[in-house]
């Protein structure tokens, strides 16, 4: 069980979601990015990161942290938007200290967007995000319950 402190840290991070995703897309996302939160936009995002970060060892450098944080938010929100029951939560086990997506697929494996991005930078296949998306899609129904708009979704947090 995540500690109250870990939960608070994730909530603080979530509180900036709308501002980050909507206002920072020009600085931190791909050029002319069509931020539809759909599957195919993930390949565009991954291609952008592979080009922007040529060496995975650079991912932790200050120049790239903002790009990765933005991309993690976008990938995570894509899962939240598209799949029923997916939601942000504090990471546990190997993902302790990270905001992750709880995926109700029965495996107990959280989806850590930041970790997935780092794997994508290591493997450089260009399709790691859509691969993870497809694996969630194979086990979790598409969202049918309506979500509040992004600007309201985490407004009471942070």
């Amino acid at each position, binding site marked *: *069980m995540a500690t109250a402190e870990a*939960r608070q840290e*994730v*909530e603080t991070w*979530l509180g900036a979601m709308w501002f980050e995703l909507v206002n920072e897309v020009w600085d931190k996302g791909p050029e002319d990015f069509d931020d539809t939160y759909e599957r195919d936009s993930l390949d565009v995002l991954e291609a952008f990161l592979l080009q922007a970060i040529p060496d995975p060892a650079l991912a932790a450098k200050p120049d790239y942290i903002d790009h990765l944080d933005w991309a993690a938010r976008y990938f995570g929100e894509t899962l*939240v938007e598209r799949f029923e*029951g*997916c*939601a*942000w*939560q504090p990471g*546990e*086990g*190997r993902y302790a200290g990270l905001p992750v*997506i*709880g*995926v*109700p*697929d*029965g*495996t*107990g*494996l*959280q*989806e850590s967007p930041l*970790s*997935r991005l780092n*794997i994508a930078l*290591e*493997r450089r296949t260009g399709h790691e995000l859509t*691969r*993870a998306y*497809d*694996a*969630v899609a*194979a086990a979790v129904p598409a969202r049918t319950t309506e979500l509040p708009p992004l600007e309201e*979704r*985490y407004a009471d*947090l942070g």
Partner: protein
Amino acid sequence: MTQADVARDLDAWLQDMGEALTEGLRRELPGFAANADRASLAALETILLERLPDKFSAEDRDAQRLVDIAARYVGETLIWNFQGCFWREGYGTFEGVPVLAIPDGIFQPTCPEQLIDVIVRRRDGEVLTDLYDGVAELVPGRTTPLDSVEDRYQDATMPPAPDNAEALAIWLRSMQVGLEEQLAGYLPAGFELTYDRASLERLEAVIMERLEEEDSDLKRVNAGFIDRCARYLGEVYVRAGEDARWDTGEGMYHWYPMIGYHDGQTMAVSPQSLVRTAADRQRGTLLTMVFDNTAQTARARTTPLAPLAERFPV
């Protein structure tokens, strides 16, 4: 925060064992000879290294069914071969995950799912046989027969995780056998178990020799050695200090049994951590140095201690 309903249903997981190890095994590991023996674990690890090609593979969502089936097979192979092993809900770093309770007196639970991750990261092909050999060293082979997997688990519920105090109590039950029957087997002939400061330098020399190779403390075949040395070391503190007693770990040592003092001035000591640190530093003076530091504030023992069998009844 919106909350995902992701808690695993471990009862359902257990009840699914029959299907998983028949249909699931055939589907995920076609051609694999599931003989529930040591050799099959080596074969399984070879297959996993082929199917999970890099150190990140255990995190691939589309590999989770394979990871789950492999983990179940590892656990059931140990249950099949060794007396007293069973699935239970994990604790510590394995909270909410199925782990295997093994009556080997090792404090940390064995989590087969985590072992798959170790396999793909270490990639030396020896993780599962190392586990099997480590368990075989301390746990008798199975003598009581088992029902089929389907019959055993069809209405089963997962035993809950122990809290820290219960986990410590379970571990303490192995104290007498660990120290009086097993420890000597790890030590050179003639090593006198005097439970005093003077023996710590000799103990440290043995630790440094056995764990000289880097990361050798991570091997399961060394887990019994590390644990029994830690028990001995802890008992040296208990026998020297009036307030010293085995206690649940705290803070960064929350997953280890500790020697606590609760006298307001003496810091708790983690014998397991000291054994590993002694191996890592290869100095030869660490155990006596820490013992002397502790003795500066701890009250010397004046009250006689009961024999192990009375203090730690099975």
